[in-house]
């Protein structure tokens, strides 16, 4: 395909993807599968059954050392101290003005914190943290690990069949993680993901990931799914994608990620950009990330301008055709005065104005399996 293909590094499952007919594209510096049989079919399969995604491009880190919780709380707005072993939390690496350097997951291991960061920005994240963490804190980038995501309503049935461990897999509810084995291979499994469906992320040694992928894909519920469907699934789930919907110019409140500022941290502050973020939490931010439902069939893509009458009030940051909705959808930032659900706006695509309405997100309901809600 393009020349970029040759400069993109292969991931541990590279040959496995190609053998399964994947079309590989460069993404985050790696050659990654964009699709196998087709984005719409793969999207629908994940919503109905279970899709296996290779997300080994993401950075898997562990942090350890005396004073770790305080050290992390100086970089993130999460309540790290209250994070119990086996619990997972979504958080944000923030710069001094409250801009988002990355969004990430934290999970407490008995003596460490396990962190998953975005592939495209992981080198910068690591440099940022290493420069700021005290010498007593060690940060290990586990480049020897691969990461798979198994997502969809049948993900539990498929994974439970091949997993053993001290705890039954059902002990994991949304945003929990623990150590398991898949055919004797050590796997750290969390019940999490980025499709809006129930599902799991599975961290294994890169040398074993092909065997784990084979075992999972041998289950009748499971098919491999590419990046294309991963993007359409997360867009329908209303989940922002770093580098598109989030960047260092966006703050957590504008990004509608206020839930990531833990309650205690709202009172105490002490995280980067706290002054600005706490002010926005109290008074509202000048812009807001919103969902947009488009009329007609023509999708609006990233970069399309949003208008209220003749006045530009925002920009689309992600957009496309939503297979499960059957219509084009988008997310973008609009001025606060135009951010209320139901506000009628227009999006300009190739000189044409498309009618759009600010819509509640997610566009497709989340189906996370939460504790006590069996």
């Amino acid at each position, binding site marked *: *395909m393009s020349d970029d293909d040759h400069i993109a590094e292969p991931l541990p499952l590279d040959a496995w993807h190609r053998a399964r007919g994947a079309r590989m594209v460069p993404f985050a510096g790696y050659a990654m599968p*964009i*699709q196998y049989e*087709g*984005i*719409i079919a793969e*999207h629908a399969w994940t919503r109905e059954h279970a899709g296996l995604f290779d997300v080994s491009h993401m950075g898997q880190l562990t942090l350890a050392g005396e004073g770790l919780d305080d050290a992390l709380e100086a970089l993130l707005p999460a309540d790290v101290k209250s994070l119990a072993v086996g619990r997972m939390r979504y958080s944000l690496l923030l710069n001094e003005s409250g801009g988002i350097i990355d969004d990430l997951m934290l999970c407490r291991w008995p003596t460490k914190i396990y962190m998953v960061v975005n592939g495209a920005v992981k080198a910068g994240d690591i440099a940022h943290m290493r420069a700021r963490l005290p010498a007593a804190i060690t940060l290990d980038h586990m480049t020897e690990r691969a990461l798979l995501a198994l997502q969809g309503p049948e993900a539990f049935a498929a994974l439970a069949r091949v997993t053993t461990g001290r705890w039954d897999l059902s002990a994991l509810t949304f945003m929990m993680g623990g150590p398991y084995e898949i055919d004797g291979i050590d796997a750290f499994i969390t019940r999490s993901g980025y499709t809006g469906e129930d599902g799991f992320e599975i961290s294994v040694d890169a040398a074993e990931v092909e065997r784990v992928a084979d075992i999972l894909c041998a289950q009748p519920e499971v098919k491999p799914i590419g990046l*294309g469907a991963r*993007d*359409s699934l997360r867009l329908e789930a209303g989940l922002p994608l770093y580098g598109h919907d989030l960047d260092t110019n966006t703050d957590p409140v504008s990004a509608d990620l206020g839930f990531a500022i833990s309650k205690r941290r709202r009172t105490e502050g002490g995280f980067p950009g706290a002054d600005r973020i706490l002010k926005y939490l109290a008074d509202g931010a000048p812009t807001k990330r919103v969902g947009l439902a488009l009329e007609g*069939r*023509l*999708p609006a*893509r990233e970069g399309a301008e949003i208008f209220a009458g003749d006045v530009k009030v925002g920009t689309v940051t992600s957009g*496309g*055709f939503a*297979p499960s909705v059957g219509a*084009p959808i988008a997310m973008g930032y609009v001025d606060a005065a135009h951010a209320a659900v139901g506000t009628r706006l227009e999006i300009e695509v*190739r000189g044409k104005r498309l009618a759009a309405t600010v819509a509640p997100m997610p566009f497709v309901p989340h189906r996370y399996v939460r504790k006590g809600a069996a």
Partner: protein
Amino acid sequence: MTTYFTQDHEWIAVEGDSATVGITDYAQAQLGDVVFVEVPPVGTEVAKGKEAAVVESVKAASDVYAPVSGTVTEANSALEADPALVNTSPEGEGWFFKLKLADAGELEGLMDETAYKAFVAGL
């Protein structure tokens, strides 16, 4: 009727001074699921090698170029209701538009089917 192909993966089937334009099977496979096609309105003057239509797949918008210059005489209205025709029948029911050729000489230099197949095999 003679069919010619471009390096941008359009096909043009010519009969006299009229022609039908679409994208090839190779192109639709590369694009993936087509969700919207914007075809030029009747009367549009298109120029060889310039944007004439836009095809939107799930993941991206791509330009479709006019293989030769001419005036659009018909746009395929079936694509409005069923853009996936481009995937299922790219070189049949999934045609994009018809045009009246401005200069049949522009067909010279386009590939025939054998040459196009060899071109695609080399990609």
